[in-house]
């Protein structure tokens, strides 16, 4: 029932008589982050309704219409380029809190990745920890058991002094990693994959993207919606406090260096509550007591309750005084929009409420019965009997959608960059592999518990003790009753993104794709976490449109579904925007996890093959930036070749023809070979003469093409040649000894003990971590 008499409402704010400048001022004072157009729309709505809004109503609108909650700048383009990307094994894509994809039989995985950039910029430990916590809940609320966490971090280069008023990189990396470590390890979910990039572009504007994968049976999948009207809404988990108020509005605008206002919106996580919450939710769910559930993330109760009721075709009535609070004296609007962590909203039939309560009590979880779903599509909020909000859900969720204007720069000339040859290739290689982006990341990875739960088949580090190397990703056993494994990899090729947003995105995707192939997994689904600068700038919007189009093009060509994603705009500081950073979480499947591969050389006397073509182009590579060169035109990624590569590689893995596989990505062929060698201490002797006609430097460090390195026994060489018929394939040398030997055009270029290279690679990041 709509209320007509304004007097029945509590906490009125007058807006219907305000002029435009007062409207804007009100948005600013109340922290709504709504622009003039949106404020005018609100004024118009309440004029028509014949009453003034309440404070709670305005705050709820600010929340619901924020960029973070309604994707107003991105929705148009996401729909345009990413709709219709489904496969027959996609169960749920871009609908609820996480995507659901079929593995085999009645077993599915739930997957999601999100950014937590703004909180991490000002409170890295808490921000990163709650990023992990939030993503676990996204997967949990689908009814899935979280089985793996993923973290991709993009930080300042740690060399420049940093921007005034912002945290420096050394502090940030240690605190962010500490937050992920302490949360992930304590909650008992392995952190198995991710990406760590350092670049001066992220100075003061770090990106923290957290992902999670869970497994769920068909019968236990829960939607983020109420089952019907007349169901009971239960808020379980952490208590509600003032922490994190206006988090989404905050994430929907630009950071200001040193500004007081930055200091409002931070939350700390509590993994000690989360661990039993996971058990309690899964237990109640497997007993069939839960009709639907949703985690409380950005937007808090306001978002979660509204979306759940609307999706279930009903309305809601909530008694805010029933919400358990951390502190007394909270205003109704604060309770409604608070983003306190560790909370889940559950919808259940009346007869199940007692049983759910018993399970919650058994696990020591606080909960409160806060309201019910109702007929009609209105959301009514009461606080000690007084109505503080009564609005149609359709209006609340009718956030604006902007087809924002954009501009795209286009380069017509083909530009080829030519760094100068170093005097000594061996010395240069040693220095190059100690670059932060090439160096070994053990100092970070080893802080994470990546084997807890006991299902990690391929760990993020592989190789023999004291000789480990990085894996191309991770493989997790999907369940006890199947041999299927889930392959996971995540990252973004930032150097290529800086060069060209379209090719860079395709390149980031193809890298993740070859990473999964290197594990022996068939790429299966895509999740994108899109981090961009200020969308009000034409060129930033242009980057976004290019990048989303690239994801659409890639996935259509290679028949991959995009099942979940998130967009983070306004990653800028003092008008300097981050480079476009679409972080890709690619999930793959391997039918028999026992066949999964690690990259280290397995034995001496095996042949080393490079498959896939490359022009030797250095544009967008780490070496180009190491040599101080920018620009250049990047090659187009050959998606047809990638598709053939996939089939051929998977055939080799299935037939057990290869000992080890590694993709050639950041750092080029030289680093890829060394990494394979570091994992076992077995050396190699290769001749680069045949791989392409480019200069030696380009052969060593080019990252172009979809190339992979294979280690193959002599007796399998012919079979391999047969499988890769029609593709570019070169036998470049053999494994053995303990030296790294590179030859080119009948000249020995590099000949040095592997341990020499390992020394500089292993200690590259020592100054930071």
């Amino acid at each position, binding site marked *: 029932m709509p209320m007509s008499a304004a007097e029945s409402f509590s906490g009125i704010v007058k807006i219907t008589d305000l002029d435009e400048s007062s409207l804007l001022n009100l948005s600013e004072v109340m922290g709504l982050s709504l622009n003039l157009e949106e404020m005018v729309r609100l004024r118009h709505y309440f004029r028509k309704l014949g009453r003034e809004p309440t404070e709670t109503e305005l705050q709820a609108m600010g929340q619901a219409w924020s960029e973070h909650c309604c994707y107003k700048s991105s929705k148009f383009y996401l729909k345009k380029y990413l709709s219709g990307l489904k496969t027959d094994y996609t169960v749920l894509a871009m609908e609820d809190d996480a995507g659901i994809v079929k593995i085999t039989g009645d077993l599915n995985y739930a997957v999601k990745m999100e950014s937590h950039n703004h909180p991490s910029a000002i*409170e890295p430990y808490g921000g990163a920890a709650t990023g992990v916590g939030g993503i676990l809940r996204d997967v949990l609320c689908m009814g899935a058991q979280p089985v793996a966490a993923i973290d991709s971090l993009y930080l300042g280069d740690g060399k420049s002094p940093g921007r005034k008023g912002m945290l420096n990189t050394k502090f940030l990396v240690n605190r962010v990693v500490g937050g992920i470590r302490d949360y992930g390890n304590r909650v008992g979910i392995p952190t198995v994959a991710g990406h760590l990039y350092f670049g001066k572009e992220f100075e003061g504007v770090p990106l923290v993207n957290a992902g999670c994968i869970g497994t769920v049976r068909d019968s236990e999948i829960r939607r983020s919606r109420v089952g019907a009207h007349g169901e009971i809404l239960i808020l379980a988990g952490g208590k509600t406090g003032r922490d994190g108020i206006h988090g989404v509005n905050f994430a929907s605008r630009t950071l200001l260096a040193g500004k007081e206002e930055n200091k409002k919106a*931070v939350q700390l996580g509590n993994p000690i509550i989360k661990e039993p919450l996971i058990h309690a939710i899964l237990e109640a769910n497997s007993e069939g007591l839960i009709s639907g559930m949703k985690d409380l993330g950005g937007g808090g109760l306001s978002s979660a309750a509204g979306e759940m009721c609307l999706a279930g075709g009903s309305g809601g009535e909530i008694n805010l005084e029933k919400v358990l609070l951390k502190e007394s004296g909270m205003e109704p609007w604060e309770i409604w929009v608070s983003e306190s962590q560790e909370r889940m909203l559950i919808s259940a039939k009346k007869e199940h409420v007692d049983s759910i309560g018993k399970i919650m009590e058994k696990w020591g979880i606080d909960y409160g019965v806060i309201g019910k779903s109702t007929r009609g599509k209105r959301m009514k909020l009461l606080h000690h009997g007084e109505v503080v909000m009564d609005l149609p859900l359709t209006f609340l969720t009718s956030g604006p959608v902007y087809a924002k204007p954009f501009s795209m720069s286009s380069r017509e000339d083909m530009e080829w960059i030519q760094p100068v040859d170093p005097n000594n290739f061996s010395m240069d290689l040693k220095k190059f592999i100690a670059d932060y982006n090439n160096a070994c990341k053990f100092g970070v990875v080893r802080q994470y518990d990546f084997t807890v739960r006991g299902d990690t088949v391929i760990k993020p580090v592989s190789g023999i003790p004291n000789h480990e190397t990085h894996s191309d990703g991770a493989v997790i056993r999907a369940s006890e009753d199947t041999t299927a494994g889930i392959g996971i990899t995540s990252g973004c090729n930032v150097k290529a993104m800086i060069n060209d947003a379209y090719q860079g995105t395709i390149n980031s995707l193809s890298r993740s794709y070859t990473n999964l192939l290197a594990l022996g997994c068939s790429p299966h689904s895509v999740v994108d976490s899109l981090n961009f600068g200020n969308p009000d700038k034409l060129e930033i919007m242009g980057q976004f449109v290019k990048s989303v189009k690239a994801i659409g093009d890639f996935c259509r060509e290679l028949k991959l579904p995009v099942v979940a994603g998130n967009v983070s705009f306004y990653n800028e500081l003092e008008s300097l925007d981050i480079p476009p950073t679409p972080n890709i979480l690619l999930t793959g499947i391997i039918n028999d996890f026992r066949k999964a591969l690690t990259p280290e050389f397995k034995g001496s006397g095996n042949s080393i093959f490079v498959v896939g073509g490359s022009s030797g182009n250095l544009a967008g590579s780490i070496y180009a930036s190491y040599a101080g060169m920018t620009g250049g035109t990047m090659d187009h990624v050959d998606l047809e070749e990638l598709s053939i590569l996939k089939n051929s590689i998977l055939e080799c893995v299935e037939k057990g023809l290869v000992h080890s596989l590694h993709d050639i990505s950041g750092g080029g062929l030289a680093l890829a070979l060394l990494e394979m060698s570091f994992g076992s201490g077995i050396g190699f002797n290769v001749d680069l003469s045949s791989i392409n006609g480019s200069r030696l430097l380009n052969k060593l460090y080019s990252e172009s093409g979809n190339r992979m390195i294979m280690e193959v026994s002599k007796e399998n060489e012919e079979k391999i040649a047969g499988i890769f018929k029609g593709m570019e394939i070169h036998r470049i040398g053999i494994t053995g000894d303990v030296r790294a030997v590179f030859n080119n055009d009948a000249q020995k270029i590099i000949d040095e003990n592997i341990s020499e290279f390992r020394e500089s690679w292993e200690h590259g990041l020592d100054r930071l971590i």
Partner: protein
Amino acid sequence: MVKIRIEVSYLEGVEDPEASTLQHNLGVLGYDSIDKTRILKIYELSFAEDEHTALGMAKAIAENLLINPVINKYDIIILGEE
């Protein structure tokens, strides 16, 4: 020589997982009448300067090093001359 104590605690409304775990377990042990538990960090510094200068220095130390203003607040207590 003046001795100063700086107490660092969480801002009102920021949940302290350590304190809430402690309080929960106190309840398990039967101390269930306790309705608020806080855990603080205490720093004691001895300054060679006079009280006024030392106070300014302590404030700067607290703000620049000891607290994160997003989650912490601090109190300075002068313990007196040593």
